[in-house]
């Protein structure tokens, strides 16, 4: 990733793996890595997301049309201080050897919040 001076001094990237899926929320308000991702969407700041993400993240993922394997660990990061979190999505199958630029095309905003998955090759 490139230069991120506007993010301030505390951005933590959390990596999705076959065993673990990460999701970011701010239950108290609307903390969001906006310097990287832009202004947060309305749903991120809404009561349904803020209330349910920490208790029923699989239900929230369902609202986004995402189903994860039953045994995948889900880790929800509630941004309650000035630390900002961003999800590093898992590399989609069939992208081995792709350049950073080409991979970036598959990364969606929601996949960096954890309410989406990156696109698959050919979906773009």
């Amino acid at each position: 990733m490139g230069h991120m001076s506007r993010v301030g001094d505390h951005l933590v990237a959390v990596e999705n793996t076959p065993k673990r899926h990460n999701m970011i929320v701010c239950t108290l308000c609307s903390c969001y890595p906006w310097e990287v991702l832009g202004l947060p969407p309305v749903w991120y700041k809404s009561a349904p997301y803020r209330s349910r993400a920490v208790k029923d993240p699989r239900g929230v993922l369902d609202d986004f049309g995402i189903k994860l394997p039953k045994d995948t660990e889900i880790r929800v990061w509630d941004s309650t201080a000035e630390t900002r979190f961003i999800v590093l999505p898992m590399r989609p199958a069939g992208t081995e050897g792709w350049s950073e630029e080409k991979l970036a095309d598959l990364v969606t905003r929601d996949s960096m919040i954890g309410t989406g998955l990156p696109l698959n090759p050919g979906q773009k």
Partner: protein
Amino acid sequence: MDGVHDMGGMDGFGKVVAEQNEPPFHAPWEGRVLAMQRAMGYAGAWHIDHSRFAQEKLPPATYLTVSYYHRWALAMESNVLERGYATPDELKAGHAKTAGKNLPRKLTPDVVGASLSRASFYRPQQGPQKFKPGDRVRTKNIHPATHTRLPRYARDKVGVVELCHGCHMFPDSVATDRGDNPQWLYTVVFESRELWGPDADPTLKISIDAFEPYLDPA
């Protein structure tokens, strides 16, 4: 404060509905409110935690029914009044009626770019770090009537320290004009069953960022 803003774990708000091709703003005034908020932040009129606390103090029915940027505007009005930058009469009139209080500094077009940089919340260490990654901690059962970052769902719960983020200014103090009062900050992870009981999804773990005054050894 135990306000309606502290939403983690509440039921009944329904599905998360994402808007397709969402614009940055839904009305021109929303962009103006964001710009005003930025300008007042740069001016040093108040701290961002004062904005957060002012939103939390809105009547619950208002908080839940007005839009996000409307809430910002209402909080800004409270702070403008509370901190003596305008009178209720002036807000109503929409223009100044007195010379008013001077701002510490002013946002001008030449510094807008620089003003968008996020401020540092790090502060020099004030004392030894009490916890390290791997330590078990119990969050305190506190219910301050003022701004706090310890959400209700994570009070009096046992978790494990995962990360230490150094010392940061303490929002609970800043929001109540008691200074930076820097504190160690940790990411603390909880098992879902510790927070939500025996029926909780066993594959779920939740973390909060907790300031040291919220934590006891467990």
